[in-house]
């Protein structure tokens, strides 16, 4: 296992370096000078030059890349061109909205998908299965931002149970949770639909394995065989999918924040793009990609823990 993890860790490092280089390059070839944009068209050349020095824009690209990534390693994400505040502070501030939203959505998605997939797989072909999978089929087809609009229409406008948008801050925890309820649901349910479908088919695949037949020959009923032997085996591919889904949750959260006017990372990105605050775009994108890569690495670790074939690889050699 250590050999396997060491390889994964190495590739994690390489991925992070490559990703940062890609992000830096794409932003680098962007036309337009941020300093000129910030000062407007009537800027004096001297002021412009001063600003460029202040923002380190006059340094050559490799130096700026080095500056950027070494800074990020130490928690310094640069200084926003627009707000003249450290990007790290803005990100930290926005994360208090985005992170709880993504985590709550992931938890809700798993909490819905797990029983639904298990239920459908154990009643394969029967009405219960058809109903659950029909709902999942629909859930996969619904754009989450439109689902969010429907939720607002139903639960915020018609029945005024939840706010239709905005975020009061965590000083009022209850209000904050209420504000995040609809966004969480909007984000979670379409993901739950995908997860439930994959779990069901993975369980059904597991049911065709020889060891399920062995278990039944030992005297287990089909249900017992599914729960005791099928589930853990079926969860291994689902684990991989959950790792992949995390990146979709992040992307989804960015869009959902737009629907509910939530001051999260997504809003920060869109503001930065429209204000050509490129250092902020660069750092926030890097943060998102970093999160995806790390979550996928953690999935691999979970994989190694869950599967003895990987766990004991060292012992056989």
């Amino acid at each position, binding site marked *: 296992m250590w050999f396997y993890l060491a390889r994964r860790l190495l*590739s994690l490092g*390489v*991925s992070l370096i*490559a*990703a940062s280089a*890609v*992000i830096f390059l*794409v*932003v680098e*070839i*962007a*036309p337009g000078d941020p300093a000129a944009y910030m000062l407007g068209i009537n800027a004096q050349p001297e002021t412009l030059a001063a600003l460029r020095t202040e923002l380190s824009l006059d340094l050559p690209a490799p130096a700026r890349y080095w500056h950027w990534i070494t800074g990020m390693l130490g928690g310094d994400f640069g200084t926003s061109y627009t707000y003249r505040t450290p990007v790290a502070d803005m990100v930290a501030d926005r994360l208090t909205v985005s992170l709880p939203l993504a985590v709550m959505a992931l938890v809700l998605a798993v909490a819905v998908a797990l029983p639904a997939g298990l239920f459908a797989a154990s009643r394969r072909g029967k009405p219960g299965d058809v109903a659950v999978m029909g709902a999942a*089929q*629909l859930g*996969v*087809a*619904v*754009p*989450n*931002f*439109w689902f969010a*609009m*429907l939720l*607002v*229409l139903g639960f915020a*406008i018609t029945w005024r149970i939840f706010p239709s948008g905005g975020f009061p801050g965590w000083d009022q925890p209850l209000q904050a949770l209420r504000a995040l309820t609809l966004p969480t649901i909007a984000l979670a349910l379409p993901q739950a639909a*995908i997860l439930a*479908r*994959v779990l069901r088919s993975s369980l059904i695949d597991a049911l065709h394995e020889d060891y399920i037949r062995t278990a039944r020959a030992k005297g287990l009923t089909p249900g017992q065989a599914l729960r005791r032997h099928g589930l853990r085996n079926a969860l291994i591919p689902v684990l991989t*999918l959950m790792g*992949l*889904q995390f*990146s*979709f949750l*992040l*992307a989804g959260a*960015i*869009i959902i924040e*737009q*629907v509910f006017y939530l001051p999260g990372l997504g809003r920060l*990105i*869109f503001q*930065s*793009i429209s204000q*050509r605050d*490129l250092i902020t*775009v660069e750092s926030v*994108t890097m943060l*998102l*990609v970093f999160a*995806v*890569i790390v979550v*996928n690495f953690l999935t691999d670790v979970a994989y190694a823990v869950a599967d003895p074939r990987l766990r004991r690889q060292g012992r056989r050699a």
Partner: protein
Amino acid sequence: MSRALILGMVLTLTVLAGAALSLVWTPYDITQMSIPDRLQGPSGAHWLGTDHFGRDILSMLMLGARTSIAVALVAVGIGAGVGVPLGLTAAARRGGLVDEAISRLSDLVFAFPSLVIAILITASFGASALNAILAIGIFNIPVFARLTRGAALPVWQREFILAARTFGKGAGRISVEHILPNLTNLLIVQCTIQFSLGILAEAGLSYVGLGAQPPTPSWGRMLADAQTLVTLAPHVALIPGLTIVLTVLGLNLLGDGLRDALDPRLKVIRA
């Protein structure tokens, strides 16, 4: 044929037909605004009502279908066109440096969800429909590369491939003559899945303003415009949303139905 497959085909063909028809005819000219007629509900004159500029929603949807289909289609084309050859090459050079490089590269691209790619491209070059195509297309490449590599590896172990190698055929020729034809079912099914995901992604991107820009009509854009009007005229938000749902549903049913009809054991990638 299963009922799901038929329903999927009907839904898909309806959308395709609407988009095709819009090339020559739409019920109304959507460049003409008519403020007195704005936000009307469905009626005999406007089957699906009008928007806040008094434009006919059915006409907008037909034109929007064209954008969605064009974006998703080209994106699938980029994904399959680049991803499949990469996957075949990786499988043919299994365990070698080329395989390793292709695998690591697709891992890397997977770390950039299409929205993040779109954000980066927009930050550099500004928003456009081309931007959406590139973002979705680039993200599709590793999907097809992984799928192809994964499905090609077991075929390489089959005895007819070993036999072909004893007949002196090279890896490239075997990939084209023997491997690819055995992956077509899988690739067809995956294409429909990626197509439906492309429609959803395009809608999402244009909803947040990273996709097609006005005046190009697009479903996501229509929903973004409808958001503030949802209390006044819910149909402005409901109808385009339902159109997306039915289109994606139709494609998914088509994909699942094709898989069941061709070979239920096909392992597609769903993410």
